[in-house]
């Protein structure tokens, strides 16, 4: 049984500073050679001030931007009582309000939205839905990330 007291609880802030090296590193790990992610001159020639992050870049915020106390989702699930080897990523969604580029200083608030028990063919599962709202240094919302983690027992 997961600790349901985490639902709606205020969790430690996520802080992440976007830089060109991490954008390149993610694009290269995915094997995505889009010049908008890799080449500042090409990006500027296309009318942008600097390179742009790939669509799944916000996943870095919770992994690299968490505090040691653990804003990272899996660490949280561990605190809540899950066996981490039995946690699956069920869903991920991003709602974008602009692109991410080097210099963006991101602050994020992650919250556990809901926990729903489901009876699967292999036993009970808890569907843990999270939402993170990421703002830049000007307070503008850049992206809202929603995820569902599946905790099997």
């Amino acid at each position: 049984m997961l600790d349901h007291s985490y639902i709606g609880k205020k969790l430690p802030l996520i802080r992440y500073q976007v830089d060109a090296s991490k954008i390149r590193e993610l694009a290269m790990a995915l094997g995505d050679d889009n010049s908008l992610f890799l080449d500042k001159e090409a990006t500027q020639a296309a009318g942008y001030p600097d390179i742009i992050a790939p669509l799944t870049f916000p996943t870095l915020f919770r992994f690299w931007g968490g505090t040691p106390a653990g804003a990272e989702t899996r660490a949280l699930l561990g605190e809540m009582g899950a066996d981490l080897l039995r946690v699956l990523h069920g869903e991920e969604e991003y709602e974008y309000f602009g692109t991410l580029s080097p210099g963006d200083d991101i602050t994020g608030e992650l919250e556990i939205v809901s926990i729903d028990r489901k009876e699967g063919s292999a036993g009970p599962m808890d569907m843990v839905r999270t939402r993170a709202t990421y703002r830049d240094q000007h307070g503008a919302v850049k992206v809202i990330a929603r995820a569902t983690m599946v905790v099997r027992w």
Partner: protein
Amino acid sequence: MTDPRFEDITVGDALPALTKPPITEIQLVRYSGASGDFNPIHTVHQAGVDSGNGGVITHGMVIMGFVGQMITDWVRPDQVRRFGVRFTGISRPGDEITVSGKVVEKYEADGEQRVRCEVEAVDQTGHRKVKGEFVAAL
């Protein structure tokens, strides 16, 4: 990117598909470092065995990243308003992933002309790994 025009799009149109090179264990190591997701089931063989998967499995976000690549091969990143997926199957090193999609809706919202598209990623045997959709302003 290909700069598609709203007026040239018909609901049902297929998006240009993307087939990726086979996933490698090294790619999973690189992706772990890039993303910060160091869950050992993606890189440490014994952890993959202990988790009941028989060996390492791919981060779901690698497959979502492949889908994202297909999308931004078609439109620019700043045209994408929403992008979401459901993970429906695990992938392993050696799997060759193909991403495809089609336009399912054309509409106007917030003063923009938008398309909603369904996307999916399958492996070399046609087994589906990811199903999702995105919205782009054209």
